[in-house]
């Protein structure tokens, strides 16, 4: 199982190309409020995260994953 900090770092990498306004990325950075990602961009990111760790991150789970830290926690639970 990959370490939580490794997962967090890689998620930050994946967000990079989608971070058009160069918002500083932290554990508490919010996808909708800080990064202002539209739903389609979020879905692209989700697909990339799923492929990176070979996991399923159902769309209906997303409302509970508002910050980068919360996504890292979820991936850490799901990644084998």
């Amino acid at each position, binding site marked *: 199982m990959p370490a939580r900090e490794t997962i967090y770092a890689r998620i930050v990498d994946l967000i990079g190309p989608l971070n058009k306004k160069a918002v500083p990325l932290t554990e508490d950075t919010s996808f909708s409020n800080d990064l202002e990602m*539209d739903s*389609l961009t979020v*879905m692209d990111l989700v697909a990339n995260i799923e*492929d990176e760790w070979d996991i*399923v991150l159902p769309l209906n789970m997303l409302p509970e994953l508002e910050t980068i830290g919360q996504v890292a926690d979820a991936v850490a639970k799901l990644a084998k």
Partner: protein
Amino acid sequence: MIDLLDKFDAIAGERQAYLDAGGRDPVGVVMSKVLSPTRAIINGRETILMGTYNYMGMTFDPDVIAASEAAVRDFGAGTTGSRSLNGTYTSHRECENALRDFYGTKHAMVFSTGYQANLGVVSTLAGRGDYVILDADSHASIYDGCAMGNADIVRFRHNSVEDLDKRLGRLPPEAGKLVILEGVYSMLGDIAPLAEMVAVAKRHGAMILVDEAHAMGFFGDHGRGVTEAAGVEADVDFIIGTFSKSVGTVGGFCVSNHPKFEALRLVCRPYVFTASLPPSVVASSAVSIRKLMHDTAKRARLWDSTRAMHAGLKARGFTLGTTTAESAIIAVIMPDQMTTLAMWQALLEHGVYVNFARPPATPTGTYLLRCSLCAEHTPEQIAEILAQFDAAATAVGLRLPAAA
């Protein structure tokens, strides 16, 4: 008190700024008179309609109109009730019989709109512990059906057989799975590689639903859709469709051969808890569906017009959503929102109505003018529309690359 509408200020402000600058509202077009399936009066001007879903031109078919007139006379203006209570008339049964004959299926269930058909079937079929696997570019009604249900929702990249395979492979083998595909995708007018996708879904033990809203009447020898054209009807469990496109009326439906299908009439909330379609609508729909079964000449005319329009726009250097004419929808890709609006308005001022489309209806960053062909468009109308596309591009300063 918090004003709950404040959150829409940004989008309302953007619209108002555009209107204040003299722009016409692309969602506020009013047709004061409809002259035929391809002509209407808009803003006092006779306009060629290139942005309706009247693919087969059935809205003015004399038999369709006669059936509607007779039904409203004999059964009144509305049913005032749900299909489950007082809302089933003989014309509803006749309409479902017409659908069964059209698709060659054992079962057919009519909904009040196509949106409700997807909302109802998707949310009812897949429950807690099941998975819905859908194409990223799925219609809003499919996404909304997912949101209304309790299944886990997994999205795959648009039209990617490989991505579908990969995502299905990650799901628990024992879980219930529903793969949702569309024959024709409404924004770019591209079609799904159904033969490959259905094979992949079957290999993973999934049930398959195909939305044929934009394909009915036009694809396949009998007009049943891309499912028929791809030769996979036997492997598709459910087909969803609408009356508001090729059929030329309004309503939605699901057809299937599943032996337990009729149970949906008892448990599908958008079917149970809404008023049924007026008798005039189901009666005219039934006639239209039966006529579509045999109208190969119309299908051929529509393909001719679609190919002529696609080739004409391509020859003029416009960027299109598909490299060849894949369906009756031709998407003209624009560089940005303001150019799209300017082109849309220039076309309308010169008597051509097309659709203005932007995100979230389109993929991120994609703005387009969507043309929808009708079997009743004449070669002269196609030539006029192409000439007006040229003129509008010049008027708004759209630089076209060298013609393809």
